[in-house]
């Protein structure tokens, strides 16, 4: 047998019986929320110079909210974009891959599918972990940077899930997390199995941060209306000594008209209300100190929040 023949046979063997053609892989790939699927969606895309103040504030919060959701979903993009590196029964592993942005570090994604009789059909839960390790240190073990789970109901990427970004753990392990600022942990729970879609996000910052954190609650209805409840914890509110917590409830219709109410969670004290029309311009403004109040609450798309 000639050398060429051997090479040809080796080549043939190499291309035989291989590939990523798998239906089961789809279950794992469809378990992960896609970028944008957990976004809060305001009907208007722009903020005008004369847009209502609370509308503008809502949009800023939406931007922050969506940015945090994207940070989570982008981390597991490899799972959607590439076939698994290895398969072991109900477990799939992507990687380890080199972290191009942080040389010396490796990352991998491990997903495990397990039966859950309590889960809706098809009755399983998929848990996933995005892990990193310092490959430059011998014996360095992978640790969790992001964990999550997904229970299917309602179709591909539709279901209940949770994601937890463990920035502080990574920081302690020496992983470069400067991009995450003061963030210590980001928790996200969602239910996209049907309307109303809900996404709850909790941000916990490091102790030295100006703000200990924030919570967000987003609700989306089928008609395009939605609501975003957000609550900032802060060490100090300028001009309001002793105030450390401010909450907003922002609601909008599919047309774009909406209302936002600011209040102090402690004692549920209202401090301001803006209502705006589809053009985002304020139709009604009320502030607790009477500064700039205008319009009538009858023009508001929503009544006062409960």
């Amino acid at each position: 047998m000639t050398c060429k023949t051997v090479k040809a046979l080796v080549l043939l063997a190499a291309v035989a019986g291989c590939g990523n053609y798998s239906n089961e892989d789809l279950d794992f790939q469809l378990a992960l929320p896609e970028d944008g699927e957990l976004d809060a969606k305001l009907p208007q895309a722009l903020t005008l110079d004369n847009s209502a103040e609370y509308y503008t504030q809502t949009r800023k919060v939406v931007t922050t909210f969506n940015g945090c959701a994207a940070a989570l979903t982008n981390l597991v993009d490899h799972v959607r974009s590439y076939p698994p590196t290895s398969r072991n029964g109900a477990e799939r592993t992507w990687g380890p891959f080199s972290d191009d942005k942080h040389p010396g570090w490796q990352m991998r994604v491990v997903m495990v599918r397990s039966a859950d009789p309590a889960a809706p059909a098809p009755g399983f839960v998929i848990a996933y972990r995005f892990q990193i390790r310092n490959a430059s240190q011998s014996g360095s073990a992978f640790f969790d940077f992001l964990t999550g789970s997904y229970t299917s109901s309602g179709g591909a990427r539709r279901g209940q899930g949770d994601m937890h970004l463990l920035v502080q753990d990574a920081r302690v392990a020496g992983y470069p997390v400067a991009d995450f600022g003061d963030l210590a942990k980001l928790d996200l729970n969602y239910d996209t199995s049907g309307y109303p879609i809900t996404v709850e996000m909790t941000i916990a910052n490091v102790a030295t941060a100006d703000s200990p954190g924030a919570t967000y609650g987003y609700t989306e209805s089928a008609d395009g209306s939605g609501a975003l409840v957000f609550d900032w914890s802060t060490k100090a509110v300028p001009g309001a000594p002793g105030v450390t917590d401010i909450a907003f409830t922002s609601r909008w219709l599919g047309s774009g008209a909406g209302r936002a109410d600011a209040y102090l969670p402690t004692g549920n004290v209202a401090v301001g209300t803006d209502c705006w029309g589809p053009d985002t311009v304020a139709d009604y403004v009320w502030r607790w100190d009477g500064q700039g109040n205008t319009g009538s609450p009858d023009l508001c798309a929503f009544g006062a929040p409960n």
Partner: protein
Amino acid sequence: MSFAGRHLTRAGAALFLALLVTPAAASTQRRFALVAGNDTGGPDTRPLVFAAQDARRFHAVLTELGGVAPADTELLINQNADQLLHSLDSLESRIAEAQRRGQSTILIVYYSGHAKDGELRLGDSRLSFAALKSRLAAAAADIRVGIFDSCHSGMITRGKGARRAPAFEIEATGSQETRGLVLLSSASADEEAQESDEVGGSYFSQYLVSGLRGDADLSRDRRVTLSEAYAYAYARTVADTAESAAGAQHPTFSFDLKGNADLVLTDLTSRREGLYVPASAPAGTYYFIDASGSIAAEVVKPADADRQIALPAGRYRVRRRLADRLRIGEIRVAEGQVQTLDESSLRDAPFADDPVKGRSREAGVAVNLSVGATVQAFFDAPTRDGLFPPAGLLSAEVQVRNFFRRSWLMAFDVAAGSANGQVTRLDTPLPFRFSEFTGGLSLATEWPLWNGRLVPYTGLRLAYLLLSRKFEDRTIPDQFFSTFSPGLVAGLRCQLWGGFGAQARARAHYLLYNVDQNRSLGYWELSAGLSYDL
């Protein structure tokens, strides 16, 4: 020696096994026959093309016209020497039983195949001429006839009474019952026995069979005697081989008979079907080619003389060769009828349309290219529905025939196609576009029929498959799977006109799917297409 494509002999011969009640068989004389043909002769020999076929044809003429009951025959195709001797034992037991009942017996032993160095070569086994001759000489049958169509077969006729002569005569007027041994050989002890594409068999066997079917009936009494058949076969064999590269081939005979009755080998009156060539038909040699493409019989018709031969019912192509063209046509022999050949039903044709000549073309390496359409589907329904959907493919194939050995087919094929599919996961239908590329290598053996115009074949195939799918949901990455897949292939190639033909083919394959888990799958393919001989 020229070679022709190997043929399986007509399975139709079996249809006539039941039509065997002849005057000879009905009398107190009972005939037994051992007919053996073997295309292979072991090391140092080239496979023959027509040996097995010659045996089948001789067997057919014996059972149709020779008064040999099917139960009293042993037909051995490509069997070894032990099996031949075992069959001979079996026949001798039956002969002894018949003799105890007071029946006179005849044993006819026919062999077509290789012989070398004084031995019959039956595959890898050997049987010496001397041993077989002694066996026949000592056999209990009243008359023993040995007919050997093999190279150097004249060695068996050496000895008392051996002659290389055009004919022998046994007086037919005596009343004394004939007893003894007759040996016929197709060639002298130092000659090769030749096969011919032209006659579609070995010269000697072909002429012997044609003679037994009636063309050797010189006495016109509708009975062909041993001496008539031999004389006919001798004359035709010597004449037709005189110009061959191997030189003239001379059949030989020897006999040691007591008694004065010639031996009637075939009784044409026992057969009601046949062909009649009237005296008004032009003189010449007429070939009658059966449905398998083999020459069933030939008739040498003198001017102003008629000829009649016995042939089974069926459709025959007729060929008469002239100096510059052929006269060809078709004739149908109906059950129980003698069909008269009508010269006006024949037409002129160039030599290229020779219905037998195609056999020669196939003997060498031949290449054809075919293109066609293929439908493929997996046997397993869930696999078919959600993993690898049924697909249509356009295919191309190059077939190389007679490359490794005669009637073997080697084929390289490629095909590509696609289909729309859908898989449902997490209660979500996911449409996708399935694509497939395959390449295959097949090795098959074929059985040309009707002079190669219809060629069934079957064999093995090793395919390489590259299967892929692209989802409409572009967030899902493309998937592919590649593997080798062994399988079986069976097909039918039909010659149409010129070098063009049509093909139909079926395949069944095994596929090991090993992405999620090891699963043994199978799929089938059906193809049809057009081919062209390069």
